[in-house]
């Protein structure tokens, strides 16, 4: 509760913003994203939801600096994005762990890339593995873990970077319903705990609303931000909130925007 109030107090300063951002592929023939404008506030959790091919991953990769916009500009912490940066960390649909490394070594990868990991870095990695519930699997190899556990290692690696902006591209999309629900709850707790700003891509409307402070609804051909919906549900949120009237109103709102009703 206290933490949440603090993040509300810090709200107001924008950490990620986009101005008329557009991205085309294949020499302009494929418009992946058109005229996107957005401001994301510090500590907020933003969900991107929309049909396949509407440019969700493209938007995320633009923010991460992996690709450059064709038009417009993205700023993070007040400076234009022109390549991958230390204050942003990204997680993908697949765990993309390195098979020859243990969980601990996988979590330490981002630290290794910035230099030689210290004892403190190792302890931090072990703490993060504990945070995602894998303290007993620090020395296991990916092939010895289930899909859900692998994804949790990837989550620990995401947090190990120390970045305060987390980009998650359908991180639990390949997992079964039970595991996904469980990991979503964990994610919500962890993101609040480390006070990060999160942008979370999903196909799942319920999931999008449940996790987010704001839901960005996107439509395709061309990829557009159709509507930004504020989710003013109290935190912490129990799973049962998904059956409440307010929640279902929000679901309705998203569905209408998507034109799926």
């Amino acid at each position, binding site marked *: 509760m206290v933490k949440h109030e603090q993040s509300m107090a810090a709200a107001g300063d924008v950490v990620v913003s986009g101005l008329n951002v557009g991205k085309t592929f294949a020499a302009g023939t494929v418009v992946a994203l058109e005229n996107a404008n957005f401001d994301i506030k510090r500590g907020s959790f933003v969900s991107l939801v929309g049909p396949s091919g509407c440019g969700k991953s493209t938007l995320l990769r633009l923010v*991460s*600096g*992996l690709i450059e916009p064709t038009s417009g500009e993205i700023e993070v912490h007040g400076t234009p994005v022109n*390549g*991958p*940066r*230390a204050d*942003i*960390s*990204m997680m*993908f649909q*697949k765990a*993309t762990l*390195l*098979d*020859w490394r*243990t969980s*601990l*070594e996988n979590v330490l*990868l*981002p630290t*290794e*890339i910035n230099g030689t990991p210290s004892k403190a870095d*190792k302890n931090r990695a072990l703490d993060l593995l504990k945070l995602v519930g894998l303290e007993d699997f*620090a*020395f*296991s*190899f990916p*092939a*010895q873990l289930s899909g859900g556990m692998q994804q949790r290692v990837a989550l620990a690696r995401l947090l190990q*970077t120390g970045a305060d902006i987390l980009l998650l591209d359908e991180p639990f999309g390949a997992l079964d319903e039970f595991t996904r629900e469980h990991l979503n709850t964990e994610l919500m707790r962890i993101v609040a705990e480390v006070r990060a700003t999160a942008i979370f891509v999903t196909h799942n409307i319920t999931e999008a609303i449940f996790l987010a402070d704001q839901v960005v609804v996107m439509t395709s051909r061309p990829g557009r931000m159709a509507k930004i919906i504020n989710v003013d549900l109290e935190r912490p949120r129990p799973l049962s909130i998904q059956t409440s009237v307010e929640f279902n109103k929000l679901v309705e709102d998203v569905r209408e925007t998507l034109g799926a009703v």
Partner: protein
Amino acid sequence: MAVQDATSEVLVDTLERSLRNRRIAKHVGIFLTLTLLWELGSRMGWLDPLFYPRPSNIIRSFWLIYFQNANVWFHLYSTISLVIIGWVLGSMLGIGLGALVGFNTVIRRFLKPYVIVLEATPRIAVAPLLIAALGFGVNSKLAIIMLVCFFAPFINTLSGVINVNEERLELFRSMRASKTQILRKLVLPDAIPVIMAGERLALTAALSGALVAEFIQRDKGIGSLILVYTRNLNMASAFACIFTLTIIGFLIFKGMEKLDHYIAYWKYEGGRERMSSKRKRTMVEP
């Protein structure tokens, strides 16, 4: 619960072992019967003893060439040392060039047609040319072995380096990894299993390459020894040499398997478990 599991595991173990023993017994039985038939056929004159020496004679030849005359050791040493040196040099060249070509798209495009031509040509056909160019002796033998060893590691390293997982590459880029870091921490370790497969093929090829070189040069080595025995119609000793090569081939296979378990440990359950507890120990101790 745990006790029950343990007993059932023991049960399965003994069952597997007895099945395995029975299988081995069957194989040995068939082998002995065939050998006996061969011996019998040779003695009864059904098989020409000139070309199909009796098993008992082959065994005697083993005794002769290994202990009584002990002349095989010199040739064995010559062949094996050449195979190992040629294999190491040839495959190192293959791995090095494979990595280089894999990383440089310009070189890759330029070299592609040559690679295709080289792949389509039986390498061994070039052997006489190499001998003509380098003369008789160790140099041309090594060159032939290196030539037949080069290709599998080259192609496998190349494909291992080219086929880097796009998602992993993106991960490394998002972590702002340098080119060298991507090479050292992603591309090379990722390519290790496929490089090892190439090395395995290369070592087998090296043995064949050495034999061909020895057949042509006829100075020393198991290949020239086989040639000498066959010309003297000493087929029993020729067979003893051939079976020696069978044993070497088998040892190569087993040795490479061991090496693979050691180097590409994450591909095997046993290897993972071994490294897992090893890493735990090194983490806890200091």
